């Protein structure tokens, strides 16, 4: 198991470095001159050139990259061009908001997704299974942003129960915060609950058909024991992998959902930065998001190794 962990950590580390190079490289191709943006509309070519020199924009690629990477490692994410502020604090606040959303959604996905999947498998082809199947079918077929907008229409405009987006001011009570977070989280979770539930159902059906479950029944064990102690633990193992992939979808969903609900998180910050060609912001937020995804994958790999006796005990 030690070998496995070591290999995964090294792998993720390398990938992060490569990613940072890629991100840096791609964003360098952006049209629009950073120096010109800083200098403003009425700048003369000389002023622009001066700023370019100051920012070191004519240095070779690896020097510019080195400077940027060194800064990141020391915690300096650069300055936003548009907001003319250090990026660090802006992103950490955005990160906190997004985390609120993502964690709520993830908890829903895990509990509902796995729960529904397992229950459908146990009562395969029964009414519950058909119902869940239809529900998940909708979940994977309807685009996220459409759900979000429909929710806003129904719950915010027509029923007036919940706010349409944004985030409450600091110091607001739990209920207020919850009311702002609930709709976006559900929107975020919808497609994923559908996906995880289908995967879990599949995996569980496989487990229930397996020879080792037949053996457990042949020993006269109760159906409850067979399902929960024998089938489920083995069925959940592939689900860990699926959840890891879903973190990637979750992140994608975050970007879209925050746009729909005008929620000030990491995703919305990224979109704003792209729209306004705020280069340092694009680089920093992309890197942060990618790093989070990599770490989530690493955690998933480690969990999988821990729960799979074949890897854990060699």
């Amino acid at each position, binding site marked *: 198991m030690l070998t496995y962990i070591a290999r995964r950590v090294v792998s993720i580390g390398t990938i992060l470095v490569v990613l940072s190079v890629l991100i840096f490289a791609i964003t360098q191709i952006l049209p629009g001159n950073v120096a010109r943006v800083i200098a403003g509309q009425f700048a003369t070519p000389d002023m622009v050139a001066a700023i370019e020199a100051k920012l070191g924009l004519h240095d070779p690629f690896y020097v510019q990259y080195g400077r940027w990477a060194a800064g990141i490692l020391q915690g300096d994410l650069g300055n936003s061009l548009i907001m003319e502020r250090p990026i660090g604090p802006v992103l950490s606040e955005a990160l906190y908001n997004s985390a609120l959303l993502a964690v709520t959604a993830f908890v829903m996905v895990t509990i509902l997704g796995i729960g529904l999947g397992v229950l459908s498998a146990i009562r*395969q082809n029964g009414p519950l299974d058909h119902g869940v199947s239809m529900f998940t079918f909708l979940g994977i077929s309807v685009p996220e942003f459409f759900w979000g907008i429909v929710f806003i229409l129904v719950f915010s405009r027509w029923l007036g129960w919940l706010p349409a987006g944004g985030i409450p001011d600091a110091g607001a009570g739990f209920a207020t915060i919850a009311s702002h977070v609930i709709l976006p989280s559900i929107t975020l979770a919808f497609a994923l609950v559908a996906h995880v539930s289908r995967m879990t159902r599949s995996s569980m059906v496989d487990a229930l058909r397996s020879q080792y479950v037949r053996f457990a029944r042949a020993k006269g064990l109760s159906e409850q024991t067979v399902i929960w102690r024998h089938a489920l633990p083995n069925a959940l193992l592939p689900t860990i992998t699926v959840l890891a992939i879903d973190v990637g*979808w979750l992140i994608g969903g975050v970007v879209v959902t925050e746009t729909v609900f005008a929620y000030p998180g990491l995703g919305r910050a990224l979109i704003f930065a792209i729209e306004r060609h705020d280069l340092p912001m694009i680089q920093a937020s992309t890197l942060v998001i990618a790093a989070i995804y990599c770490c989530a994958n690493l955690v998933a790999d480690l969990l999988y190794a821990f729960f799979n006796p074949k890897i854990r005990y060699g």
Partner: protein
Amino acid sequence: MVDVISDTRVKRSRRGPLNLWLGLAITGSIVALALLAPVIAPYPFDEMSILTRLKPPSLAHWFGTDDFGRDVFSRTLMGAQYSLLMGFGATLISFAIGVPLGLLSGYSSRTVDEAIMRLMDILMSFPPILLGLLILTVTPPSLSKAMIAVGIVYVPAIVRLARSVTLEIAQEEFIQAAKARDDSTAYILFREILPNAWPPLIVEAGLRVTFAILLGAAFSFLGMGAQPPSSDWGLMISDARPYLETAPWIVLAPGIAMSLTVIGINLFGDGLRQALDPRLNSSKSG
């Protein structure tokens, strides 16, 4: 020998063929509508009219009009073309690149395999939307660029699938026999392995088309795909947001249309999977 399920409480499913035909019917109708759109649309999709702005659905305008007075029904019909183009185009790109790479990776030496998989790992370390956004920030966005971006985003998944299928087939004895009679690698890959590899690939293709439609629409929604005045569904929904309360039909029409399209393709894909091989209905695919 028939494989037995050892649980007497499992009822048998009879829904397979229904899915296939229903899905085919829905998808077929939408494809037909999309192809015929320029002909059957009552109004040109970009014809504006100040007088008839934001009118609710009526006999003249089945889905009402939008903020520019354009007929929503016609625009929705045209939008079908873009979504289907996105779905099938992106999938085609990802398969055209992914399948040969996967075949090669699964069959060649370990070094080649490692190299390709490392590259795919790096691509897969980006969350899908992020990779797409990154690609789309580099050039001015458009529908075709979004389609290429989505195609590239899905390449690693296709490579992985093609590789694992190839690895499985390469173990079969008839492949060893082909090597033993001095068959060339190209022949083995394309005439021995590939013909046996297509069932799981076809099933995956069906799934990918729906993913591509949804992801492409998301890009348009974010402004990174189709640009105005295009009647792409994602763009239509995004444009209509300010008028959500006053004129919900502008949002609902394209949204429901997109959902129906994806539902149709998903039904067809499910039915196809069950028809092609009941054993594919395991957690190892989809």
